[in-house]
């Protein structure tokens, strides 16, 4: 009879990915590439916001985009029209990107020649929150039609992001979306979170968002990191 033994592993399932992500983050820091992980639900206006962002910053920094989708390359086509370098990552049915997949994308696009790389993560508020991609900063878009109760439903996502864009504020009056209620809820979960209301459609707030990104990129490239704790 074979003798079984119990072997203790006691290891978080996320540990491998966390290590890989930290390594990637250090490499990006060295090559002076800022990686923004952009997350949201489907239909919140990620791609439109991205187009506005490219428009605002393309003359001052070299931008590259990683588009992650379960399938299709619709978003990559849209972004490619702006003349920005873009690569499509297919997650093959998987609902999130991990650090390994992000690394492949960065290698594919030649991230060392970019100042700012935006990773458009899979549209989903659950899984991307659990897997560190190695990004310098994490951003999330919440759009007005989705409702101001989302922080209650997806607390993990709201707790790991550094900046929250509230998109589609041009239609605020048509929805029961209270910016103050949202700010109060978000503040409970993540007191350091920066909230920027925007309208990717009209361009409102894009200036403030571009300023935030400019500052974050500049900070990232400081030789002596000033107690920056990447999420």
């Amino acid at each position, binding site marked *: 009879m074979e003798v079984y033994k119990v072997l*203790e592993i*006691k290891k978080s399932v996320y540990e491998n990915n966390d290590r890989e992500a930290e390594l990637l983050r250090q490499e990006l820091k060295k090559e002076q590439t800022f990686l923004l992980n952009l997350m949201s639900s489907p239909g919140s206006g990620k791609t439109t916001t991205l187009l506005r962002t490219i428009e605002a910053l393309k003359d001052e920094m070299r931008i590259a985009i990683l588009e992650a989708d379960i399938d299709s390359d619709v978003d990559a086509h849209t972004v490619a029209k702006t003349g920005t370098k873009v690569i499509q990552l297919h997650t093959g*049915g998987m609902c*999130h990107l991990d650090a390994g997949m992000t690394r492949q994308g960065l290698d594919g696009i030649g991230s060392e020649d970019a100042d700012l790389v935006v990773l458009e993560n899979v549209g989903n508020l659950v899984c991307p929150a659990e897997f560190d991609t190695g990004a310098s900063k994490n951003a999330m878009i919440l759009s007005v039609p989705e409702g101001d109760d989302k922080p209650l439903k997806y607390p993990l996502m709201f707790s790991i992001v550094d900046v929250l864009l509230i998109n589609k504020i041009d239609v605020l009056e048509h929805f029961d979306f209270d910016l103050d209620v949202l700010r109060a809820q978000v503040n409970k979960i993540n007191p350091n979170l920066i909230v920027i209301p925007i309208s990717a459609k009209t361009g409102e707030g894009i200036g403030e968002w571009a300023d935030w990104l400019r500052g974050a990129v500049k900070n990232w490239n400081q030789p002596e990191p000033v107690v920056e704790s990447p999420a």
Partner: protein
Amino acid sequence: MHELGIVYEVIKIVDEFALANNLTKVDKIILEIGQLSQTIPHFVEACYPAAVSDTPYQETKLEIIVLPARGECQACHEIFNVVDHRKICPNCQAEDFSLISGREFNIKEVVAY
């Protein structure tokens, strides 16, 4: 689908562990899942057979231990289950607590030879 990706990760870690420890057969994998983890044990069990099919772990059993979501009340320091008590301290009714456990998703151990 969310759980499937995570189960793949579990198999990857167990596989690395088996290689490093010269295990020839893994009989059982034991996971610890916190009550507040965004992973539902039932769904992990449901997609596990798909994740291990056609791998050396096809016959490997899966056991899940659910870890309670415990919080400590900031006001009276009572320790209570935050899910059962809907985030309200049963002792003093305060709503501020710090989470002690409940977000884990660990591979606790494997039974193997």
